[in-house]
Structure formats: structure tokens, C-alpha cells
């Protein structure tokens, strides 16, 4: 019991993220990067940006999933070790947004991967992204 509590606590306090652009217009990516700058200082919550999906716990996805990126997104997700979460940043990642119905787009991130949290906004503000990550972590407790 107590071991489980400690492990959950550690997972909540140390989410390492990897960022993937599955076809966004880049505005969402810039907001994700802005959220990682010293101004917002996400290391307060233990969030670190990792280069390798093997190290990461949270896959931060931005943009609709294009047909080209679909397989790559899946590969990256499979390279991460359990427990892993997917965060959809921006309206596009949540529902394909303005690109919905486009010939090269297969929809939001949830058409390919199980998404744990959606952060709306076009683009989503850094505060919203941090809030989304914190809410995702709080939901781990339950």
C-alpha cells in the first residue's frame, strides 16, 4: 500500500516529457517551447524535456495527425516505457481543428493513440499547457 503511494507520488512529481509535432502549423510547438523557458520554469514541477522517447513519461503531441506522421507517431509511442501518457496540445491535436476533413489528415491525436488530456486553444497558451500537465498528474492520484 505505502509502496504504491510512494510510487504514485514519485510519478506525479517527476513527469519527463518528449515533444512531437505530428503535423501542426508550428504555433503550438512554439507555445510548448515557450512553456519550457525559464520564464515559466516547469522544473518547479519536476518537468524536464527529454530528447529520447525512452526516457519520457508524457508524450506531448501538437497538431493533427497527417497520414505521413501516423506510423512515426505510433513508433515513438511504442518506444516509451510504461506508464506513459499522451497530452494533446491545441485544437488540432484534440480534434484536427481547421484541418478536419483535409485529404492528408486522419484526425486528432486520439484517432491514433489513447489521449489522457486535451488542451484546447489555437494555439494553446503556455499557462494552459502547464495547467493541463498539472491536472493530468493530479488525475494519477485516483
Amino acid at each position: 500500500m505505502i509502496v504504491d503511494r510512494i510510487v504514485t507520488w514519485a510519478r506525479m512529481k517527476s513527469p519527463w516529457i518528449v515533444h512531437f509535432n505530428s503535423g501542426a502549423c508550428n504555433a503550438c510547438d512554439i507555445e510548448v517551447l515557450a512553456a519550457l523557458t525559464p520564464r515559466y520554469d516547469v522544473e518547479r514541477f519536476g518537468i524536464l524535456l527529454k530528447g529520447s522517447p525512452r526516457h519520457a513519461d508524457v508524450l506531448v503531441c501538437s497538431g493533427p495527425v497527417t497520414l505521413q506522421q501516423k506510423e512515426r507517431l505510433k513508433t515513438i509511442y511504442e518506444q516509451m516505457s510504461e506508464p506513459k501518457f499522451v497530452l494533446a496540445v491545441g485544437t488540432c491535436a484534440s480534434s484536427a481543428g481547421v484541418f478536419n476533413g483535409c485529404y492528408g489528415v486522419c484526425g486528432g491525436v486520439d484517432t491514433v493513440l489513447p489521449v489522457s488530456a486535451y488542451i484546447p486553444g489555437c494555439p494553446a497558451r503556455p499557462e494552459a499547457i502547464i495547467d493541463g500537465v498539472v491536472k493530468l498528474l493530479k488525475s494519477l492520484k485516483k
Partner: protein
Amino acid sequence: MGIALFDIIVFPGFIFLGILSLVAEFTDRKLNARLQNRVGPPWYQPLADFIKLSTKETIVPESASSRMFRALPLFALASASTAFLYIPIWSTTSLFPFSCDLIVVLYLLTVPTLTFFLAGWFSSSLYSEIGSIRTMTQLFAYEVPLYMALLGPAILADNWSISGIASYYYIHPLMALFNIPGLLVSLVAAQGKLERAPFDIPDAETEIVGGTFTEYNGRFLAFFRMSIDVELVVVATLIAAVFFPLFTPANAIVGFLIYLVKILFVIFLLAVLRTALARLRIEQMVSFCWRILAPLALLQVLIDLIVKGVLAH
């Protein structure tokens, strides 16, 4: 037998060294954050990272050599922790001193670097192989200045054991002033040893994903991170023992507090270097080490030889 077990498990073995290395990592990260005008991580951050990583699922890549992949992190941690036994902490003698243990400690500190190289190599992924080759290239660049900078004080003290060096400078504290170039060289070379900016070329995450550790995850990554932290403690202790002759052999508690202040000061200097400098390219790093650091380290050896000759007459 009981005492040996106590030494291995509690003090100065895994528990003591583990706590100390977590404190060291936290200090380093917090200082780094404060120097960048950030708030920085909370005090339990390294512990949370360690627990989280060790409870994660562990994936061994199909193309990797499974046995080596699993064994290497343990080698790194074991050799880094063993090096700690031969360095004086509060008194001028270490726990198990013997003559020439300076050389042994330096080689024990090389073993983790070699395991990083092998780890990258046996992961057989493109990025980790590039990272391993960079680790090796870097090793040849910083090792010589680091060794020479630490051998200078040994020449002056006429003793090749760290305990001997520490007791010599404890008796003649002013002699330590001759070793300031060596201190500077070893601080910079230690950044290469610990693979931190400006020498974090082997795991440059903006160029080669995760460098040597690209394929590592779960508890193996936790062990590697732990061994880097232990290495940080060992390097800080080594620099503190050789270059800062402040010991109180009579009083262990005061001596231990002084020891903590000393290593935190060394970690502070290392953190300032890491924050202030940006990453170099590998060939810039090699030419910097050979053109600037190595001559400075030679100068240190020269100064010590001259001082020793003058003193002898």
C-alpha cells in the same frame, strides 16, 4: 564481517553515498536554476526521479546485447562508489588508505566513462553510437590535464596517496596556494569527466537525442544517473581533499560539516561553470583541452617541481 557489511551498506556505502549524491544533484540543479533566475526544483526532486525511473517498465532493445545492457549500469555505480573509499572525508586519512591510491581513484573514475562508452555501443542505435564515440574522444582530451593537475600537488607533497597529500597540506596549508592553477584546471576538466556543459557533447540532446543513454530507460537509466551523481560527489570530494586543506582530525562532527561546506562549494563552482558556458563542438573541446588546459596543468607540475627544489635547499 559485520563491520564490512556496515561499511558497504550504510557508511560510507550505498545509503550514505546515495543520500549524499541526491543532495549533490539537488544542489547542482537548484543552483543552476537560481543562476538562470528560476525557482528550480523542490528538494525531493532527485529522489522522485530515482523512484519513478526505477519503477518504470524496462525495455531492452531487440538489437542490443542484453547481458551487457543490463550489467553496465551496475559496473558504473560500483566503481564510482568504490572510489569514495580512498578519499579522506573529515580526517586527513581515508577509510582504507594505501600508497598510490590517487592513481587507483583516478582509474576507478575512468571506469564509469568506459561503461558509458560500452553502454552506448551495445545499445546499437545510431545516436548512442555517436554519443559513445564522442565520450571516448572527450576522454582522451580531458584525462591528461585532469591527471596532471592532480599529480602536481602529489609531487609537492612527495606522496602518491590522497591521505598523504591531505596530511601534508594540513601541516603546510600555505603550500596549497601554489596549486591554484591546478585547481582551476581540474575544475574545468571535471566538467568533461561529468559530461556537463560546456562538455556535455556526448549527450547533447539537441543534436543526438539522448547521446550514449538514448536507449536506456527504467531502472538501468536510474542506475546510470545515480552513478553520475556519485561521480559528482567523488570528484568534488577529491578536489576538496587535494586542493582545500581544511580538516579537523580531532572532531568528526565539525570535520564532517566542514567537509559538506567544502564539497558544496566545489559543486557551486561546477554549477556556475555549467550555467555560464554553452556547449562546445567536439573538435573545439579537444583543441581547448590540449592547447590550453594541458599546458596549464604542465605549468602546475613545473611550479610544484620548482617549489620542491627550492624547499629542498
